[in-house]
């Protein structure tokens, strides 16, 4: 036991004396949270819009002022003509344009049907859809206000509610994903590198020729990274609560327990990789390519799994982070209890046991 403690202390020395490791450990989660939270937002805000108002009457002015008042659009000074708009689309200054014809206001009352043209840059289809929907809403609302008394004979009004995330906070979706990603990096990549480093430096030779049980080498390597992963986890939780205003709905205890389970899965993977490789570079490459990319692609936090071809969906079933992502999303954001995530937990536990078994089995007691 004393030996194990000395080994773990030594492992912490390694971590705290290596600036690169420290940077990956504590710099990366913070940077990722801030990047995903602010820079890589999928929400649509501050869209550049050009307005070509040929009518210049009360009605067109009112619509324009509504466009201006929200935080969605930012009017780039009023355009003069059609060609001007095209030029700005090409330069990327604007993502959409709205054009009012001559006599817009009077057409509404005289002919009962005025037209307004909305043009959107669909080179980014998602943004284009969102933008046209926004404008559509603004115009529809305005139209209803124009004649509040005139009601259609039969009307269906959809009352919509966006559950679990009423304010449409984009941070919600990716936080569980980032947590999974960080665990992959810390528990899998850093752990495998830490073991392989001993091989590369030749210290493994001395450790093997000692009374220290070879298996203990693995345990001693795993424990510090388990602790460090949990510290990272707490950092991410604090950042998301206080910086991104993402509340934790479910039981904190359950979230921690599930996270430890996932960390053990990642650690086993890291140890397995370290058994199979002899250089730090290979270990790093395998963990990055083999573990991190699937985590990004197949957990569903970046790209919806449902839209993927069947084969990719099948692949996603063997990615541990997919289950962890589902669990954390459920517990943290929806406030679900264990009863709702036991299936994923069971799969994850099975994976952890299997991987740990293979890793321990493969540990070489000789060179």
């Amino acid at each position: 036991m004393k030996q194990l403690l000395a080994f773990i202390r030594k492992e912490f020395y390694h971590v705290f004396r290596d600036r690169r490791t420290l940077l990956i450990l504590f710099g990366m989660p913070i940077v990722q949270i801030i990047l995903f939270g602010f820079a890589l937002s999928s929400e649509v805000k501050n869209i550049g819009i050009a307005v070509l108002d040929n009518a210049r009457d009360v009605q067109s002015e009112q619509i324009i002022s509504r466009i201006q008042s929200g935080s969605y659009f930012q009017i780039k000074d009023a355009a003069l003509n059609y060609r001007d708009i095209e030029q700005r689309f090409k330069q990327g200054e604007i993502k959409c344009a709205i054009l009012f014809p001559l006599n817009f206001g009077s057409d509404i009352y005289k002919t009962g049907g005025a037209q307004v043209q909305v043009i959107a840059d669909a080179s980014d289809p998602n943004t284009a859809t969102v933008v046209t929907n926004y404008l559509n809403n603004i115009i529809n609302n305005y139209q209803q206000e124009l004649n509040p008394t005139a009601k259609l004979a039969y009307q269906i009004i959809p009352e919509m509610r966006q559950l679990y995330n009423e304010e449409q906070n984009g941070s919600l979706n990716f936080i569980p994903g980032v947590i999974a990603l960080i665990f992959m990096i810390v528990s899998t990549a850093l752990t495998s590198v830490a073991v392989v480093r001993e091989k590369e430096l030749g210290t493994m030779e001395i450790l093997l020729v000692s009374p220290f049980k070879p298996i203990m080498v693995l345990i001693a390597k795993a424990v510090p990274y388990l602790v460090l992963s949990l510290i990272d986890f707490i950092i991410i939780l604090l950042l998301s609560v206080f910086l991104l205003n993402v509340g934790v709905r479910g039981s904190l205890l359950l979230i921690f327990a599930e996270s430890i389970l996932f960390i053990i899965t990642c650690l086993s993977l890291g140890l397995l990789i370290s058994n199979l490789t002899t250089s730090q570079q290979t270990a790093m490459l395998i963990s990055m390519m083999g573990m991190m990319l699937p985590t990004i692609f197949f957990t569903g936090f970046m790209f919806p799994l449902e839209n993927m071809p069947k084969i990719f969906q099948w692949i996603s079933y063997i990615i541990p982070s997919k289950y962890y992502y589902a669990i954390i999303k459920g517990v943290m954001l929806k406030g679900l209890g264990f009863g709702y995530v036991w299936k994923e937990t069971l799969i994850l536990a099975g994976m952890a046991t299997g991987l740990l078994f293979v890793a321990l089995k493969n540990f070489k007691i000789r060179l």
Partner: protein
Amino acid sequence: MVSVEVKSIVKTYGDVKAVNDVSFEVQKGELFGLIGPDGAGKTSLFRILTTLLLADSGTATVEGLDVVKDYRKIRNIVGYMPGRFSLYQDLTVKENLTFFATVFSTTIEENYELIKDIYEQIKPFSNRRAGKLSGGMKQKLALCCALIHKPVILFLDEPTTGVDVVSRKEFWEMLGKLKKQGITIIVSTPYMDEATLCDRIALIQNGSIMSINTPGNIVQRFPKPLFAAKADNIYKLLHDLRADAEVESCYAFGEYIHLTMKANDADALSVMRVAGRNNLEGLEVKLITPTIEDSFICLMNENSE
């Protein structure tokens, strides 16, 4: 009393025979040297004896324990210092020593007597990181770490490679002291001059042992009189001697050329006559006692014939 017994050990890597049917015995308390150039198979032998490698065939025991079956017991009683500096570079001298002491379930204080002489020399640097030590200091620290658990037998793989002359001398003095405490020491080195400091040596080349004996006996068994020759134009002399029918072997050795003649009763005068055929200036010939290196070269030539 036998400490290490090696019987017909063979180890191959692909097509390369690293260790080829090697057998030898090391007595308890002996300072045994494995002498041979790089790639002779010394490290492979060490790894087999320290249970790190499995031999293809043959058996070996350390203190009566089988290197395959009883590997765990052997790991408790041996001290091993690999050829490469293998301590934690980012840990200080003290931290390294404490760590290895704890791993071996002991403390620095418990066995301080054993490492005292060596540790005193690096103590002023005990708070320096191991990676920032000089080559000699590193080796002393590594020796301390290998000794900290009071091993019965010590395996030192090329401990003096890349170490300056003064540190090398100090290192060997320490080995002498350890030997007095009854520790069996097996050491390998590519430096022939260090061989004379061992009780017995095995000359090893291409995975095979050419000779095992005391350094004195190995030198005594040199088959013929050995001469050293020198001239102002030493390259011409070497060239001429190589071409001469009466010369058996000749090779450059420091500032001299060492040579043996085909005739068993050759003396300095007859060598002088042969060497002087081309009237080289500054010619000098003398009869000398062979060194381990001469013996090594002689055995190597015999083997290749």
